[in-house]
């Protein structure tokens, strides 16, 4: 097979895993990596599973690897943090069937809460080999190579594509699918029992030390592999300043060369560990190296250490100060940096002229018709009434923290809302605390915080936004969903029953479109001792619109301008994009309105009524 297809980087990586014969693929959705698993789920003979969280996904993959089955774990950088505990043992035991971990990074934090560089935990911390692709084709080639090398070295290989590689679309070569090995299992307790026992064979040394030594000894094997890797190469060019182009950095360096019409000496790097001899061969001819990498100065630091050890006199600059230390790399950053080194090139840098006009900032908000707008409205009213604090979590409903609602006071990472609310309660602050968390996030990590809160005897209200899907990342199923990734029916876990079984004081199930019902539930919950759980259940509006099973009966609303006194409760406590203010009075945009009618309940003056 030699045909080509126009694929997104994530799809290309998924195809790479398929061609490599991967049979178990597990992950948790997260931008920029979600489409890898979605692509793979179209292949019926591969087990593809959206898991409860990333740690579970990686553990599933290791189970498959133990049976010599190739497996792929897919997550975003935040998820790799969640999986890190397991990863820090998996690195010591090694793998059997090839195991590849895709950790999608988001430099610039375009769809994330931070812009972490997962090369640090996977390479510098876990000492695993890492591939950093520059384009979709290379990403696919790297996945295939990673599976082969993973089996050859018995190490888990990490793919660290950045968002622009994950989401980039270009032609990708399709190749034949490799036959998978027959699964088999044999015990090897000295390897797969990670425990502090003395190893007789190693002269009574404790097993963690023996396995750590094993991992360290693997580094020389990896060094040799990377030396010959097709993912690293040297390009000759003019001058004594060498450009070290890591991962996506290569795309921007080559773009800059094209724009400037100049060929620089380039060291293209796609692997960690680095190809030491190639690096030294390149560096010895240079006075200065500029390292272009996303987003921390990882390769820059490794190079400085290497040159110190080898006594190579070459200046190394990069993201530790010469280039911006935060944010996403770009061709513009590369161009500007080259223009400072070669002032004569300045005139070739494309000119841009600001429009000279203030453009309003657009913040994200709930969709028009989203049931959570009703829930957020009721929660804001109740929280203000009792001067309470609301902690937030990751998901669509986090938009309640932005203007105009500005409801949640905190948003960190998956599941932190309930423990943080517990901490606020335990501090003795003395005001009611509310945690608001989505269903997928609840299962991911929130459930542990809930169990802890119940057990600790704290007084708080936990609100679970149950829309039966992971809406934020594109409607992936989770343990509360009634279908799996293939749309096949599965057992859905009921949040209210779970909370009741755990000993929550109450577990009220409400319809988030029904604002009076939500308010009543909140009033009851805020007065209770212990942990009161409210489950706001209703399928995501966007899904319901598609399936024709809306959570409301659409009906036109009308506005009576004489009754509107311009109090703005419909924007500051509700914020529907179909309502705007004009000359101090509300107005409805019927082109945008989906007739959910929640605003009828919101307006206290009766200015909005059913037609």
């Amino acid at each position: 097979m030699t045909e080509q297809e126009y694929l997104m980087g994530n799809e290309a990586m998924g195809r790479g895993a398929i061609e490599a014969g991967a049979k178990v693929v597990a992950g948790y959705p997260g931008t920029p990596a979600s489409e890898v698993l979605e692509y793979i789920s179209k292949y019926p003979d591969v087990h593809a599973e959206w898991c409860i969280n990333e740690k579970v996904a990686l553990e599933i993959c290791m189970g498959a690897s133990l049976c010599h089955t190739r497996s792929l774990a897919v997550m975003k950088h935040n998820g790799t943090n969640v999986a890190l505990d397991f990863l820090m043992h998996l690195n010591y035991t090694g793998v059997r069937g090839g195991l590849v971990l895709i950790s999608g990074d988001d430099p610039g934090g375009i769809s994330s809460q931070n812009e972490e560089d997962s090369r640090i935990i996977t390479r510098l911390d876990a000492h695993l080999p890492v591939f950093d692709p520059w384009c979709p084709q290379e990403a696919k080639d790297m996945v295939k190579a990673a599976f082969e090398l993973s089996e050859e070295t018995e190490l888990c290989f990490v793919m660290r594509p950045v968002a622009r590689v994950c989401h980039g679309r270009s032609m990708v070569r399709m190749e034949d699918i490799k036959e998978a090995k027959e699964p088999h299992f044999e015990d090897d307790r000295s390897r797969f029992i990670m425990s502090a026992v003395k190893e007789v064979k190693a002269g009574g040394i404790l097993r963690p030390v023996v396995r750590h030594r094993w991992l360290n000894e693997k580094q020389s094997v990896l060094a040799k592999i990377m030396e010959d890797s097709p993912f690293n190469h040297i390009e000759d060019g003019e001058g004594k300043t060498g450009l070290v182009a890591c991962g996506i950095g290569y795309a921007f360096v080559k773009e800059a060369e094209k724009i400037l019409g100049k060929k620089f000496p380039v060291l293209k790097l796609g692997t960690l560990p680095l190809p030491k001899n190639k690096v030294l061969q390149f560096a010895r001819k240079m006075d200065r190296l500029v390292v272009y990498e996303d987003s921390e100065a990882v390769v820059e630091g490794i190079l400085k250490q290497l040159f110190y050890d080898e006594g190579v006199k070459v200046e190394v600059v990069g993201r530790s100060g010469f280039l911006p230390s935060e944010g996403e790399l770009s061709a513009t950053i590369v161009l500007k940096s080259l223009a400072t080194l070669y002032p004569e090139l300045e005139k070739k840098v494309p000119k841009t002229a600001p429009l000279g006009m203030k453009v309003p900032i657009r913040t994200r908000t709930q969709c028009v018709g989203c049931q959570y707008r009703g829930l957020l409205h009721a929660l804001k009213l109740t929280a203000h009434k009792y001067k309470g604090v609301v902690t937030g979590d990751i998901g669509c409903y986090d938009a309640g923290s932005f203007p105009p609602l500005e409801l949640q006071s905190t948003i960190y990472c998956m599941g932190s809302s309930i423990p943080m609310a517990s901490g606020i309660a335990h501090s003795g602050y003395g005001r009611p605390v509310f945690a608001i968390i989505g269903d997928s996030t609840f299962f991911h990590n929130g459930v542990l915080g809930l169990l802890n809160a119940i057990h600790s005897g704290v007084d708080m209200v936990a609100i679970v936004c149950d829309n039966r899907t992971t809406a934020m990342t594109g409607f992936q199923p989770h343990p509360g969903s009634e279908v799996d990734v293939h749309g096949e029916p599965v057992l859905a876990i009921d949040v209210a029953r779970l909370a009741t079984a755990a000993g929550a004081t109450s577990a009220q199930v409400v319809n988030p479109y029904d604002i009076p019902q939500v308010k009543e539930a909140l009033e009851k919950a805020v007065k209770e001792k212990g942990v009161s759980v409210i489950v706001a259940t209703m399928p995501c509006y966007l899904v319901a619109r598609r399936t024709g099973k809306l959570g409301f009966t659409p009906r036109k609303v009308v506005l009576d301008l004489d009754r509107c006194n311009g109090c703005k409760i419909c924007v500051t406590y509700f914020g529907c994009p179909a309502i705007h203010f004009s000359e101090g009075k509300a107005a409805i945009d019927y082109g945008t309105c989906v007739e959910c009618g929640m605003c009828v309940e919101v307006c206290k003056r009766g200015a909005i009524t059913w037609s």
Partner: protein
Amino acid sequence: MELNILIAGVGGQGNLFASSILAEYLLKKGYKVFAVETIGAAQRGGSVVSHLRISDADIYSPLIPAGKVNILMGFETIEMLRNFELLAGDGMYLLNDYKEPTVLCNMEMDTYPTDGEIRAALKKSGKKGYTIKATECARQIGGSLLTNVVMVGALCQVSPLFDGREVQQVLAGKSPAKVREQNLKAFDAGGLLIQEAMRKA
């Protein structure tokens, strides 16, 4: 030959579909195509930007470098203005005269620029371009969701790289049966709108 098209709009405007129609046509024509879009958290009523890079030589950066955008398609007015600085000196814009106010504008806590301000800024920029009422036209045909197709129809009239009839064939092939007819109608309407705008200019 290199052409860089940037499509700026808001979530739900079918930015990606427009980009994929153009990409499929260009790939058939034997060009190299490299595209990327900002997706994810941006999709809930936020800004969405698609970069579409076309060349007969290798393309490296998926993102169009600042100052290298040849055609800036604005599916929404301020989203186009937000990206205006990326336009090349001789680049052109193609604006859909459609305004989706921001939440803060809705609250009268921020101001959406007026038509007069927008016209003046565009004029001052010295960039050539056309403004058409694509969303209004889409609504007349069958709904605002057709805006992207109207804009693609218009683009095919301003860039010699696109053969309108062939692009329309690609569109027909990629359209689900129940919206195919409306899509084809919207495509033609876009072509007529831009021809009218070009005559007036």
